[in-house]
Structure formats: C-alpha cells, structure tokens
C-alpha cells in the first residue's frame, strides 16, 4: 500500500506502461513508414527507461529511510 502512495512509483508505472504501449505499437502498427515506427520505438524506449529510473529513485529513497529509522 505504501508503495502505491509513493508518487515516484505511480509516475514510473505510468511511463512504463505508456512506453510498453508505444514500443509494442511500433511493431504491430499497420503504418510501416520508417519514421513512424522509429518515433514510436525510440519514444517507447525512453519512456520505459524513465519509468525504471523513477522506480530506482523510489527504492534508493526507501533504503535511506530504512537506514535512518
């Protein structure tokens, strides 16, 4: 429950899901124009990395809080 209340987790999860959607769409999209697939693929990867980064931030903050308490 605490995890769900952590905004870093929520933001990370949102961008992770959107990133996966974009990345997946870049492979299945009927529009195979190179620029279309490239834009969605790269944006998807960036969003996934951002989502992972936010969760890493959350975990390291949790570790610091655990040490302090």
């Amino acid at each position, binding site marked *: 429950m605490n995890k769900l*209340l952590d*905004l870093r987790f*929520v933001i990370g999860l949102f961008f992770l899901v*959107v990133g996966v959607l974009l990345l997946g769409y870049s492979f299945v999209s009927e529009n195979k124009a190179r620029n279309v697939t490239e834009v*969605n693929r*790269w944006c998807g990867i960036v969003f996934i990395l951002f989502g992972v980064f936010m969760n890493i931030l959350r975990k390291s903050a949790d570790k610091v809080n655990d040490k302090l308490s």
Partner: protein
Amino acid sequence: MKLHLIDYLIIALYFLFVVGIGFLLKRKIKTGNDFLMSNRSIPLWITSLAFISANLGAQEVLGMAANGAKYGIYTAHFYWIGAAIAMVFLGVYMMPFYYGSKARSVPEYLKLRFDEKTRTFNALTFAVMTVFSSGISLYALAMLMQTVLGWNFDVSIWLAAGIVLVYTYLGGLTSAVYNEVLQFFLIVLGIAPLVYIGFHLAGGISGISNNVAHAKLHIWKGMDSPEHNPMGVDAFSLIFGLGFVQSFGYWCTDFLVVQRAMISKNLNSARLTPIIAGFPKIIMPVIVILPGIILLALQKQFSGFDLPVNANGATDYNMTLPLLLSKLYPSGILGVGITALIASFMSGMAGNVTAFNTVWTFDIYQSHINKRASEKHYLTVGKITTVVGVLISIMTAYVAKGFNSIMDLLQLVFSFVNAPLFATFFLGMFWKRTTSNGAFWGLLSGTAAATLTHGLTVAEGKGGWLGHVHTFYSGVSQAFNIAGIAFIACFLVTVIVSLMTKPKKDEELTGLVYALTPKQHDRAKVCYKNPLWLGMIVLLIALVFNIILY
C-alpha cells in the same frame, strides 16, 4: 487530426491514473487541514515540481508556443526576466513570512499583517478570479478538442470537469498536487520529442537562422524603441512592468502558486520550493517557446505549415502547437502529445479549484460565517466547495461559449486586480509603518488606476473606452504599462495613507515584518541546501542565457 485506438488508449490510461491517485489518497484525508493544506507534509521535490506545474496550464503551453511564433525568442523574457527573479525573491525573502506566520493562505497573511477588510478584499477578488479562470481553462480545452479532434463540446466539458472533480473531491489539495507532478512529466516528455523532430526537420540551428526573421532570434536587440522589436515594447516597460510589477505580483502573491510552497514540511523546504522550481522554469522555453520558432522555420521550407485564421481574419497563433502535433507526430506518440495538452488544461483547472477551495473555506467561510466549527465540519465544507467550484467552472465555460469576448474581459479584470498587489505585500513585509488603512486604500487605488489606464489608452484596437489619451505600440506594451502605473498608484497611496493613520504596535508585527523578525541564519553550508546560494545559481544561468541570445 484523426486519433487511432492506441491514442485513445493512452488518454484513457492517463484518466485512470489521475482518478486512481485520488482514490489512493482518500484514506489519508481526515480533517479540513488534510484536505485543504495537505497537513503541511509534502516533500520538497513534489512541492517544487507542483509549483512550476500549477503555472504550466493551457495558457502557458498553448500560449507560449503561440507567442514563440508571434514574437520569437523575445517570449523568453516571460521566463528569464518575468519569472526567475521573482521566484528567487519569494524563496529567499518572502517565504519566511508566509510560512513562519503560520498563515494558511495569502489572504490570511494579510489579515495577520493588516486587518480583516484587507484580507476579505483580497480573498473575494482572488476567489472570483480563480474560479472563473478554471472555467476559462475548461472552455479553452473543449474548444480545442472540438476544433482539432472533432470531439463534442459538451462531452469534453463534462468529461474533463468530472475527472477533475473526482480526484480533487477524493484527495483534496494533495491529489491536485500529485497530479500536477505527473502532469509536469507528461507535458515535458510529451512535447520534447516534438521539439526534437521539428528542430531536425527545420535544419537545426542553421536552418532556423536562415529561415526565421533575424529580429525574432535575439532577445534584447531592438529594445531602444517598440518599433524595433517584434514584441513592440521598450526596455523600461519590459523591465519595470514585466520584470518587476507583473512578475513579482504574480509569483510572490498569487495563492495558486504560493500555496504549493506553503504546504512544505518545514520552512527550509518552503524557501527552497520556488528556487528549485526555478531550474526547470528557466529551461522551459525549450519546450514551450521553441516549437513556435520551429514552426516559422518550417513554414519557409515546406508547405502545409500555415496557421489558420480566426473569425476576425487574424492569424490564429494559438493553433501553433496543435498544428505541429498533427504534422509531426504519428499515432502512438500523438496520443501522448494530446494527453499532454489535456493534462495542461486539467492541471490549470484543478489548481484553480483547490486554491478557490482553501480561500473560500478559511478566509471567507471560517472568518465570516462559522468561526468555531470542528475540523470535520471544515472538511465537509471543503468537499462541498469543491463541487460548487467545479459547477461554477462549468457554468463559466458555457457563458464563455456564448460570449467569446468575456474571456478577454475576465482576463483584463484579473490583471487589474493583480497589478497593485505586490506593492501592498512589499510595503507590508518590509516597512513596519504600513497601516491597515494604507494597505486597503492602496489596493483600491491601484485597481482603479489600472482600470483608468486601460480605459484611456488604446493598443491593437483594445481599450480606450473612456477616452483616447495615448496609443501603445502593442497589447503587450499596454499591459506592462498598466501594471507599472497600478503599482506606482498603490505604492504612493499606501505610503501617504499610512503616514496619516496609526500603525500596529511592534509586538503585533513580530514574524510578519522584516525588521521585526529574528533573522534565520542558514546553517546549510552546502550550496544545494542554501536558498540564497541556489537562487544565485538560478539567476546566473538565466543571465548566461540572456547573454548567449542577446
């Protein structure tokens, strides 16, 4: 612009998340203080991003891209002169009074410093201003969705208002603030790819230099006369009217943004909030202004990038960002871009509703109607006010639909009210001789001066409804000069009336006035924890940007 299933999925996902945040926070809300002030428990990184995001509404995102196309890089003055300095001043000098006085709102600080009538005047004007602003955001969102996507106007209004209502009703200010942070990342990450794609398509720096008018690519050249620069302003009215009066009047006194700092965990975090927000703020021109300049370069090199004309036959610069989204974004990332636009409108609306809520409940209801009710009672009042605030916003949106000019009128009235405010706060915080009567009559005089100046001057066919004494070169120049005149009028009347009336005793002003407040010595030796040092770094970076783009 046609959206596909993937785009709608992303929009739906965003709605699910914002409502979900409201549901998750519901169990933490037990008292009026939790609902309206987040119990002053919000971490620094959230308050900083919410501080900038509360301002990152539709007018900012759409409006600055429009200004980028109209005025070029001159628009960056709204950030590097018109925001950075005031944000640093707020953090370093004013937050100790706002936070240290334990005031729950800006009007409440006015009550502690002056008296109830000054507080009530500010509370009433702010409450009206902010709830109508919320309605204008809603109207603008619905109009944009109708024009660009072909969505039904009524569906857009009720859907957006309904979602904002759900998450603000459930989670109060905390929910609005959390969603503002999500919206900040969405706006930045949703529009950054557009800037990247457009920049490369336009040919990079050389492509922009070769295809955009030289005057629009420099930030200070041509300031000797309004006729020599795209914005039609002179250096004095820019620096005094925008850089001092309008900028400080907004960033230092508008409760919508100041509230985000006031809910910090402690005083140091409250001081650091606007300063840390200053870092992304001074870089925001890359996200919000550069698209407008990129469009100018693309118009010269490719067909299909012409802006539409509005009903008056003038170029509709507000369509700059939607046009770029439709031309440069394929389905998929287009859904993200549209969601970012929707997020900017909704964050503006939610911010206004929660600020209205706090001011209504504490400064009007608790002060004048029911002074000694329980915390649970004020929680109920807060929730009812949220519903009423959203309903008034919806009503305003429909009125604006029927009378389009009402938007211009409302925004004009807001500028009259805001313009003199900073003089009142400045004198109140730094001159202990300022009296309650001085503050009240100064505020009224400043507002009257702003109204008169608009009524007697003309710019771009607007104003001059009382007479025609002077013509300003541009609407922007008129606005800056109105702000300057209102400030001077408020300042002078406040000083004169204060010298003729009795001030409060020194004991009553401790913690509220600079000279009578024990100075807080910043123990933080490292610069990244020290508000003054961090503020200097923000200003230095802004200065470097000004030099590079001179």
